[in-house]
């Protein structure tokens, strides 16, 4: 068999494992360590609490949101239902006020929740009263003390 075949196979192997090595060695730079084969990297939990900032009678107040769903009143007086679940289908990114496992690391879930918050706020139909959505994430990483993270996303009027 000609040496070119051998060389081609060696080059293929080097290229494949070069890419794999690069993905694995840089996995720590990605919150979810994507492509890094880091199985069971953590035993962390996360609890999400959602509120919305509304303007009512000229005052700005923060109202709790239960199970990601809330009702607003349109200027016409008609009720309007809004739901986090309309945009976020992934179950673990749509479970509120309950401690759930933070799959693929706490950092991965915090990043995803924050991205989901921005996405929901961006796609929320203006209801005349919601000014912002606020997310409080309580994270226990590997059984350590809780770390609380706050994030807000302004609702485009």
């Amino acid at each position, binding site marked *: 068999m000609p040496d070119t075949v*051998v060389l081609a196979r*060696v080059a293929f*192997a080097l290229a494949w494992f070069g890419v794999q090595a690069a993905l694995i060695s840089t996995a720590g730079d990605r919150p979810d360590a994507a492509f890094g*084969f880091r199985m069971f*990297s953590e035993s962390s939990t996360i609890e999400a609490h959602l509120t919305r900032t509304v303007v009512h009678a000229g005052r700005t107040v923060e109202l709790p949101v239960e199970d990601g769903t809330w009702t607003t009143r349109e200027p016409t007086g008609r009720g309007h239902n809004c739901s986090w679940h309309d945009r976020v289908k992934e179950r673990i990114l749509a479970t509120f006020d309950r401690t759930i496992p933070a799959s693929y690391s706490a950092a991965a879930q915090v990043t*995803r929740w924050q991205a989901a918050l921005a996405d929901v706020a961006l796609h929320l139909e203006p209801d005349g009263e919601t000014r912002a959505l606020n997310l409080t994430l309580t994270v226990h990483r590997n059984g350590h003390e809780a770390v609380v993270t706050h994030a807000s996303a302004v609702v485009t009027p």
Partner: protein
Amino acid sequence: MINGPRRWALELGDTYVLGLVRALIGLFLFWHALVLGQDLSQHGYFGDAFHLPILPESWVLPLRWYATLLAIRVILAVMVTVGHRARYALFFSALLSLYVMLCDRIQLHHNRFALACYAFLLAFTPCDRSFKITAPEETSASSRVGPLWAQRLVQLQCCLVYLASGGAKLLDPDWRDGSVLGDRFFRYGYQADSYGVPANLIHLFQQPFTAGLLAKLAIATELFLAFALLSKRTRIFALWWGTMFHLTIQVTSKVEIFTWLTLSIYALFATPDTLARRLSFDPDNPRAVFTARFVALLDWLARFDIQPWKPDQLKRGHALVITRRDGTHATGLAAFAMCTRCLPLLFPLWAPVAFVASFTRKGETSETA
């Protein structure tokens, strides 16, 4: 050219087991496509809702095209399983699988990425020369001999997964001191309790010292497997230890198909030949006939050449005799140990049976074939 790479690049061998692994990978690809189809029907298209693409958003297909892509993946998975243009089907299955993961990293799971990697590498192996349902006549022993260089890459990929996983744990202080495992035991102890695990045992596992010890064992196991699978001397024990490791994970955690995927890939570590051992049985002995049929049924890797024999001086009094690769014979407990070593379904029994068998010469015969 250096001799080692040349030998690797030009190595030939029987590809029977490659065909079996290909068919199994096809089933996993089929399962994965079905899961995505189920997600689509139950929750709608991820592209129309919140998702986290790694690719530019404009590269994410609209719903109609995504549904078509899923249908193509199902067809490709079937082609891989039955062996019809299987290598092309593997190649495109891997690419489409990777594409979907790049369209939404929320769908990126280690086991699915590993499946895509294995499928991609298998596409470069002659895995279409056996277990070919569409053309079984094309799978004779001589036509099955093919290059093994890409099969060796699949083996290396498997070891790399262990190295990445074990290495990351080794570098993580929370893993090293047992915090990760301890917290899991603490939080999920009630589940073990509901399965009837004794409370004392659960309590023991939840102790920091025990959790720390088990964490170190898990790290050592993954790093051991990364290297021991590559050595002929340690491979059989590594395969057994890895099998037990994965079965334990399967029982205690949710890992989708990862256990079965890895155990399927383990088959590629078997010596690339077939019928290298002979199992002779007494055709007049109903128990021997039953045992021989049982072995034939479970001999998925074609390790045994199973033949009836005419009683002779050696075999008199034995229901069956196994002739090993080196020509030595084994009966009784030693033969059972050989069966547990070669039959995938009995493999979890191999180490304890071989350990017991090592204390006795019963069943070993000094004569060679």
